[in-house]
């Protein structure tokens, strides 16, 4: 139901821009205020990790566009994870969660890091025990669930509800799509290239990506690490190796380093790798710069840490 609403809110504005493969982020997605306010607390609370040092925000930091600044995130006790942290911002628009889409919605995703020994290493029983001892959570949850003890599903639901509020509307490009702003020449050229080169074949939709699985290294293959969470891990089909959920380009200016293993430190590098490996094209510097200018217009209003809108 939530996805449907989200998609619907996206689609209506899209009607105005039927020709463009990108649609603007809506101002608001409907969410449950009560649950979201608790979710916000939980999102920033390291109580959800076994040794109480890691919270969701540790790897999904608003300063870094909802991700972190590492190639691969570091979890509990300094352990390095397998993948580069995807952004939490606008994750409500993803058609699936995780690099290989193994979680079908935000709630399912939230369960992952919680249980992952490398990330937060906790368990249902531990979390439930701790949360039920905290009066502020008991009081807050009692308004929703009454007097029964809080369970992990309530917690996850609250976090998912909060994540719905983490959208970044009013990016320059969105305003341009809505006819409220004009792009400058470099940005215009960049967008034209974006389409003509075929970037838009995979990076489209409201989240400029995140709506299909595509191969990384179509023309020029990319080596596959043995511990990669790609589609092959799910389907075990050879041709699914290095096939990932297309990441979003929203706020891409903030979420370096790039790609599933964080191999590209800068946007220019990332663009060159993409065009070389996936399109078989060597771009000129000016083309790269134009594309960078365009990508910068995809940065929207980052939500504040406190205060649910």
């Amino acid at each position, binding site marked *: *139901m939530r*996805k*449907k609403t989200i*998609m*619907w809110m*996206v*689609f209506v504005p*899209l009607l105005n821009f039927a*020709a*463009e*493969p*990108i*649609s603007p982020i809506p101002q608001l997605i409907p969410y449950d205020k009560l649950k979201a306010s608790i979710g916000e607390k939980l999102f920033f609370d390291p109580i959800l990790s076994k040794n109480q040092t890691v919270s969701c925000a540790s790897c999904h930091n608003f300063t870094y566009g909802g991700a972190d600044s590492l190639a691969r995130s570091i979890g509990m006790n300094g352990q390095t994870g397998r993948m580069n942290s995807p952004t939490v911002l606008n994750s409500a628009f993803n*058609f699936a969660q995780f690099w290989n889409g193994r979680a079908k919605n935000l709630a399912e995703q939230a369960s992952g890091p919680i249980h992952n020994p490398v990330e937060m290493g906790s368990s249902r029983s531990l979390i439930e025990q701790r949360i039920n001892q905290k009066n502020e959570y008991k009081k807050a949850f009692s308004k929703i669930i009454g007097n029964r003890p809080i369970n992990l599903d309530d917690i996850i639901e609250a976090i998912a509800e909060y994540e719905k509020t983490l959208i970044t509307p009013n990016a320059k490009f969105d305003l341009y799509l809505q006819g409220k702003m004009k792009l400058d020449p470099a940005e215009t050229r960049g967008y034209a290239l974006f*389409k*003509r080169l*075929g970037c*838009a*074949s*995979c990076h*489209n*939709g*409201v989240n400029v990506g995140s*709506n*299909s*699985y*595509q*191969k990384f290294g*179509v*023309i*020029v293959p990319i080596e596959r690490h043995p511990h990669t969470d790609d589609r092959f891990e799910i389907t075990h089909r050879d*041709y699914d190796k290095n*096939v990932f959920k297309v990441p979003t380009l929203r706020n891409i200016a903030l979420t370096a380093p790039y790609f599933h293993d964080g191999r590209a430190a800068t946007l220019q590098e990332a663009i060159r790798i993409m065009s070389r490996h*996936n*399109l*078989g*094209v060597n771009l000129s510097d000016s083309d790269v710069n134009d594309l960078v200018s365009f990508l910068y217009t995809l940065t929207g209003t980052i939500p504040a840490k406190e205060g649910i809108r």
Partner: protein
Amino acid sequence: MMKFPKKTLIALSAGAIALGGLINFQLFTKHYFIERQNINEQLNEIELAEKKLDTTVLRSGIFLYVNQDDIIRQIDTIHTMLHALETSEHVRESHPQMTRALAQYRKSFDRKADYIYDFQTANATIKNATMVLPVLKQHSLSLFNTANPHERRFLENLSQTANSVLLSKNSLDGEMLNTLELRIGELEAYTFDDPAKDNLNTAVIENLKVFRDFFPRYKSAIENLESSSTQNALDNARKYFYREDQSELMAVKSFSYLLVALYMSSLGLIIYFLIRSEKDVVTDRLTGIGNRKGFERRTRTLNEPILILVNINKFKNYNDFYGVASGDRILIETANRLKQITQGYRGATLYRLGGDEFGILMERSSGIHYEQIGRIITEEFHKEPVAINSNIETTLSISIAVSMHKPLLETADMALKSIKNDRTRNLIRYEEGMNLYDGIKTNIEKTHELFEAIKNDRLIPYFQPIVSLQTSEVAKYEVLGRLVTQNGTVHSIGHYLDVVKESKLYPTLTRRMIQKSFAIMHDTSYEFSINLSIEDIADSETVAMIKREFGRYPQIASRVVFEILESEAVNDYGKISDFIDEMKRYGCKIAVDDFGSGYSNFAHILNLDIDIIKLDSSLIRDLNKNHNAIMIIETIIGFALRANIRTVAEYVSEKEVFELLQNLGVDYAQGYYIGKPGPFEPHNGPFCILSGEECPESA
């Protein structure tokens, strides 16, 4: 009486059940139709959404700049609709097979979604390659020199390969892949000095390889999508839905049939009860034949009706003697027999018109011979006794009256009454002259007068003087009851005796007479006689009153004479005897009235200690012409003398009789010759002053 609540209870219960059923039915069918509509719509929506999805997927294959959110959104929509259907309570409860089929559909749809994702992966890649190839081709034309045969051949190869690739993309021709491998090899064999040319070749080869690598997946994704079994699964679900729906519909149908049946049966019940109650109104409960109401109804419809009234004589006795249950049995048996008899006559209907009265009604023009029927009935009951119970039988005595004059029942009843005590006949026909109607009218008038007289104190005693035949002087008076009507006419009580007895005012009358006569006579010295009947004597109130009056007027008792009818004295000997003893103790005298009329019994007279004998009028009237009477009187005188009993002769109306009686030695005389009854006036001197006649010489 029990039948009434039971019927109501049945009707009410049936009504309540029907109402409850109806309400239930309403809710059920409404629910059913809404749900059916809903489910139908939902299934249609899912099918439609899937078709839309197919279109969107196709579009994304055709168009270059596609927003893939549409695909995702439409997949999501189908999931939502499916979920709504699967979790609907109604579906889960009433359509288990459909639910299973829906689960199948979900599985098959999820597979389709996976195919779509696969397609998306292959499609985007191939699309890009498809976009690039023409560009490279175009570029190659400006880059390469067609003059150079080597380069020319390359261009041809490139063009050919690119074209066939683009063609087979749309035709999904897998064959193409085989030749493609060769062509890639061919192109790879080309080398150029110009790095730009080499780069172009490389780019072409790279894109061709993309094609080569991704086309199988592209093709199989499309083929999978084409052959997707989702439609079948959905059709299956729909099939089960209809099948299960049918059984629900059957339930609705059978329920509605049930309701119709219930409605019809309650209608039938109502009609039945209506007819029954209509019938009941005109049916006699005990015997099952028609009742008075039925009789009246039919009478109104006939032109010239004839009523044969059949009455069981002295039926009340059977009831009293054998009990009401036996009486009922007799009535039922009588009704049955009469029914059998009347059945033989078309147009004759039988009714029970009263307690022991039955009526046969027919049209005069039907030509039925009522006399014949009468005879048959009489014979039937005369021949065959009627069972009172299993052991006892009795032969009923029947009276039959026929009337053709309206009002039928009243006239026939009148006729019947007139032969009630006639033992010789039991069949009579009412004739116009029998106006017993007037009798009834007179009775009512007389009763009215009586009541008025009592109320307004117009019952007064008259006194008739009785003279001594020896001294010719008035010795005593007889008290006779008189009623004065409103207009002043004086009637004797005898005129009213039947209505007095009927209205049970007899004791009142007697007591009134006694009180009044005592009041008038108490301060005279005359004896006076009061007539008492056995009823009066048996009435303790009256006797008590007499005693009270004695107490009121001391010394009046010795002047009181009580006259008693001899026939009554004979019949109720015991009571009379006790009374006489009592009264004699007060000093009263007792006279026997109408002595010598037939049942004279000297022994009784002596035993009862009678003081006075009043000779019967039959003896006195025409005494001068009746020798036998003289003889009888002489005998009585002789007896009376010896028994020390006085004798009084009544109805003396002639001088001759008076003198005769004197000679015979009767003690007193009374009669019109001596004086008519009238209000009390004391008389002194010989009676001749009364009549105004010449005084006879004293005896």
